[in-house]
C-alpha cells in the first residue's frame, strides 16, 4: 500500500542548511517528503463551501485565510469542519493542480484523515507538540511522512527559493 508522493518532493541539500529551530515527531499517515513555506491558521477549515479547489484558495467568509491559497504550501491547521464533502474538495485540489505540499493538523477526524489520504500529500499527525502553536506562517518546514518527522527552519535553505509571495495567490 506504500505510495510515494513525487510531485511535491524537492531536492534536499542538508549541507547548505542551518539546524532546524524545532523538530516534531508523530505518526506519518501519508508517505513521501515535501518541504515548503508554512501556511498556518488557528481556525478549522471547511472543504465544501470553504475552499476553491481549482486554486486552493480559502473562500469562507471571515476566515483568517480568506483569499489566500494553500497551493504548494505546508498547510498547518487545527482540523476539518463542516460537510462530509471535505475530502472530495481536497482531492479535487490535487486533480486540478493546486494541492498543499503537505498537511499538519491537530484534531484527528475522518474528514481530515481521508482528505489527507486522497490529496496524497505527506501528512504527519499526533505530533509531540501542537503544530498550530509552534509553527509560524512562512517558516520553512520539511514534512517527512515516511518517518513521521517535521523539521521547522526559520528560513528557506539557500537556493530553495522561499521568497515572499512565492507559491501564494492572493485573490
Amino acid at each position, binding site marked *: 500500500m506504500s*505510495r510515494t508522493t513525487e510531485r511535491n518532493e524537492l531536492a534536499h541539500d542538508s549541507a547548505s542548511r542551518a539546524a532546524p529551530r524545532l523538530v516534531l515527531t508523530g505518526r506519518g499517515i501519508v508517505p513521501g517528503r515535501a518541504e515548503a513555506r508554512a501556511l498556518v491558521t488557528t481556525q478549522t477549515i471547511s472543504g465544501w463551501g470553504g475552499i476553491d479547489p481549482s486554486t486552493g484558495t480559502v473562500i469562507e*467568509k471571515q476566515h483568517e485565510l480568506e483569499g489566500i491559497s494553500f497551493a504548494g504550501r505546508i498547510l498547518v491547521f487545527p482540523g476539518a469542519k463542516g460537510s*462530509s464533502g471535505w475530502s472530495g474538495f481536497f482531492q479535487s485540489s490535487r486533480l486540478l493542480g493546486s494541492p498543499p505540499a503537505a498537511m499538519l493538523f491537530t484534531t484527528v477526524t475522518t474528514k481530515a484523515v481521508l482528505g489527507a489520504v486522497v490529496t496524497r500529500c505527506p501528512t504527519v499527525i499526533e505530533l509531540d507538540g501542537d503544530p498550530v502553536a509552534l509553527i509560524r506562517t512562512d517558516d520553512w518546514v520539511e514534512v517527512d511522512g515516511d518517518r513521521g518527522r517535521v523539521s521547522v527552519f526559520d528560513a528557506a535553505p539557500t537556493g530553495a527559493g522561499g521568497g515572499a509571495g512565492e507559491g501564494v495567490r492572493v485573490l
Partner: protein
Amino acid sequence: MRLSTEERAMRDGDGGDAVAAAMDLLIRYGEGLGAERLCAVKNVAGTTTQPTPAKTQLLREGGWAKAFAVTSLDCDRDVEIPPMRVPTCQLQQGFSADALQITPYNPHLVELQEGAEAFATDRGINILATCTPYQVGNLPVFGEHIAWMESSAVVYANSVLGARSNCEGTTSTGAASLTGRIPYWGNHLAENRYGTHHIDVRYPVRSFQDWGLLGYFSGGLVQEERPVLTGDLADVDSEKLKHLGAAMATSGGVEIFHLPGVTPEASTLEAAFGGRDVPDSVPYTDAERRSAYERLNSNGSSEDVDFILLGCPHASLNQMREIADLLDGKTLNPGTELWVMTPRALRSVAERNGYVAAIQRAGGKVLTDSCPAMSRVAPEGTRVFATDSAKQAHYLPAILGIEAWFGTTRECVEAAISGRWRGELR
C-alpha cells in the same frame, strides 16, 4: 491494521481490480485513522453522480469508469467498475431536468448528471437523491454499522436511529459500497458514543425554530464533541430532531447527540454519559437563544426579500402540508420566489395529497434531488433570501454571496406573500 482472510483476498485482487483498489483506499484510510480493523456494513449512502469540474475533466479522459475510479475510489488505474457489493444509495445531487424550467441551472450539468446516473444505476446504486435517506425508506436498525456521508444524515442516523456511522467521504463510501467494509473507528465503538458535554435547557424549547436555535448553539459550543441535552424540552418530533442535528453539524461537527428519554442510547442522563461522571452543565437561556438567532441573522440587512427557501434538510410530508396550509388562498409577491425542497419519493405522495398543487397555486415551486447550496443556484437576480433552516442561513451567504434571514416557517411564507421580511424572535 488487522485484515480478515476475506479482506486480504479482496486486497489481493480476488474480487477484481476495482475491489482491490477499494480495499487499498480503506487500508490507507483506516491506518491513517489508527483503526485496528474494518467492520462489515450493508448500508452505504454516498455520492457519485453530482457534476464537478474534476469529474468533467476525468470523464473526458476516460469515461464514467475513470471518473468513478478516481473520485469514488482514489484509484488512478483504468479499472472496470462491478455492481455494488452491498446496498448503496445516492444522496442529494445536482438538479435534474425537471428543475430546468424553474431554476437558472446549467442544462449541461443536467446532461452530465444523467450520464453519471445511468452508470450508477447500472451498478445497482439507488438514486434516492436526498440528504434525508431516512425519510424515504432507508432506515438502518439500532446498532447497525453503516457508512454514510452528509453531516445532517449522519447525526440523525447516530443520534435518533442508534445506527453507527462516522461522517464518511466520497471515496470511503465508494470503497465501502464495493467491499462492504469501513474502518472500525470513532462512532462505531460504544465508548466513543457517550456524551462529553451537558447542556441544561432553561429556556422552553417547543417550536421548530427553537429546536434549530438550540442545535446551532450546541454545535458552536461542543464543536466535534457529543452534547447531552436535558431540561425544558417538549413537543419533540422527527422534523425537529432533523433540524436540531443539521444545525449542530453546521455550527460544529457534531455527529452524535443524546436527549435522555427520547434518543435510544440515553434512557437516562447517566446512561447518556455511560455511567461516567456527568460534567457540570452549561445553561441554555434566552441569552444563548438570542445570540444564536442574531448570528444566523448577521448576514441580513435589506428587508426586501427575493427568495424564500424551505426544506433544508429536505422537507417531510408534514412540513409540505404545513406550507400548503399556510399558502391556502394566498398569492406570492410577484418579485419573490418560493422554493420547497423535498425528496422525489415524497413529492409524489405530496402530489397525491394535493400539497404540491396548493403550493403551486400560490406561485411556489416544489423541487427535488438537490438544494441551492448543493447546486450553487438561486432564482436569477437574488440578493436577499429567507429560510427556516439554520443550515442554509449559515452556508448560502458564503456560497452564493447573498443576504440571509432566518425565521419561522410561517414568517418565511408570509415574506413570500408580502415580499418583505418581518421576522423577529418572539
